[in-house]
């Protein structure tokens, strides 16, 4: 147990690096297939070493700090952005026993810690002393703060149903029926808001290659840039895991197929969520910045409030109350 306490996070970190490496390849492959081309296929068999080559290139690059940048903050920002992304993984229950920190307010911890990343992004954007990066950082902060509210409120329905913020309890409460069925509205809101939280298309305004060059990380090169990218993909991992736990029944099997171990069920649902993230990215165009804010405050927020009220009402109706 003690050994696992120290080794566990290291193993998770290595697994995570493996995931990020192949998630990037898989994303490029999926987008390639959707655009009727094979995707990366030159480096290694089936392009398997493409990301490794890209990362090696990033690490070999000269590490540039712009002359007019705020050196201390510039160097600190990627760390602030990455550390919370890794820290939130502690509460994700991969199976009944595979969880690093099981505590009563797991969901709250996840949401609270994950918002620290915004500070890292804003710090990096400001410290770069570049107008594009500052614009990207400002957009990013505005977007992430706005979309965090519907994200949290959409989960409130689930918390009301289970009466717990512990992710283990939430998963176990889905033994009969996954929350995606009774909380379908919440699921849609959560999915959209999590896309915005992840800064992924159609909500990739902070990066917006075509308008802001690359948003908040314009001035970052090499290792520090890799850290921002790593944080982004670790969030994909974390958000897909959270979606699996909240709405898709975590490690619980479908149709009572208990002979398949829980971790495989988790991985299956998790991969489905990750795939749909890539699929949406390949399909949707980017939102306009004014539509973005209106959508968060005028559509998603009222809908998530409606969802809370509906859940509260359904809890009192005798036929439906078994689901809520």
């Amino acid at each position, binding site marked *: 147990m003690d050994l696992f306490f120290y080794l566990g996070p290291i193993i998770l970190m290595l697994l995570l690096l493996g995931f990020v490496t192949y998630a990037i390849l898989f994303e490029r492959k999926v987008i390639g297939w959707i655009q009727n*081309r094979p995707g990366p296929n030159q480096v290694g068999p089936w392009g398997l070493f493409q990301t490794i080559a890209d990362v090696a290139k990033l690490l070999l690059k000269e590490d540039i700090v712009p002359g007019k940048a705020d050196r201390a903050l510039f160097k600190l920002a990627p760390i602030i952005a990455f550390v919370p992304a890794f820290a939130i993984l502690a509460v994700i229950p991969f199976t009944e026993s595979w969880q690093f920190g099981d505590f009563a307010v797991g969901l709250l911890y996840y949401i609270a810690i994950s918002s620290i990343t915004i500070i890292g992004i804003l710090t990096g954007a400001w410290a770069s002393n570049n107008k594009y990066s500052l614009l990207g950082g400002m957009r990013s902060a505005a977007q992430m703060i706005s979309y965090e509210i519907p994200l949290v409120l959409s989960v409130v329905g689930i918390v009301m149903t289970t009466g717990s913020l512990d992710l283990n309890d939430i998963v176990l409460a889905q033994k009969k029926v996954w929350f995606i069925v009774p909380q379908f509205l919440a699921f849609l809101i959560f999915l959209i808001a999590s896309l915005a939280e992840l800064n992924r298309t159609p909500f990739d305004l902070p990066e917006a290659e075509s308008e802001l060059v690359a948003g908040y990380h314009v001035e970052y090169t090499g290792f520090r840039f890799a850290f921002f990218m790593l944080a982004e993909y670790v969030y994909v991992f974390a958000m897909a895991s959270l979606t699996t736990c909240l709405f898709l029944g975590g490690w619980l099997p479908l149709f009572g197929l208990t002979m398949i171990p829980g971790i495989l069920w988790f991985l299956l649902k998790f991969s489905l969520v990750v795939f749909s993230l890539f699929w*949406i990215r390949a*399909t*949707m165009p980017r939102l306009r910045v004014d539509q973005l804010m209106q959508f968060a405050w005028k559509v998603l927020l009222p809908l998530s409030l409606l969802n809370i009220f509906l859940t509260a009402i359904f809890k009192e109706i005798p036929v439906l109350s078994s689901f809520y």
Partner: protein
Amino acid sequence: MFGLLKGLGVTLKNMTKPKVTYNYPAEPIPVPDRFRGIQHFDAEKCIVCNQCALVCPTDCITLTGKRNPDPEKKGKVIEIYDINFEICILCDLCTEVCPTEAIVMTNNFELATYSRDDLFKNMQWLHDNNQNIRQENMSSKPPGAAGGAK
């Protein structure tokens, strides 16, 4: 609202469709016959009439002839025949004007090199460029009427 789902359906269906890209450097792209590629030169057929050098719009062809070494025969034989592919525009005029089809086009087009010096091709190189020789060389006459180059 349903437009979004429709769009997702379109992209999902696209994943199974055949790929439209070429595996180009690994597999050559087939080009149509009558493609204007790098010239092939056959010294045996050349009568040193100088028409190709005269018609060349960029003056990229340099040629000199000498007396036929066999005193029995009249006329000249080719001695030097160079094409400078730095300035050649592959316009096909030299091959059109050639009365004996000594210079013909091929379907080869890969000329990229690391040095400009490599683009200066001599008679030997042009003679060895004998793959994918174009079949139809008399564009002014219907195919079959004239023999064309073998």
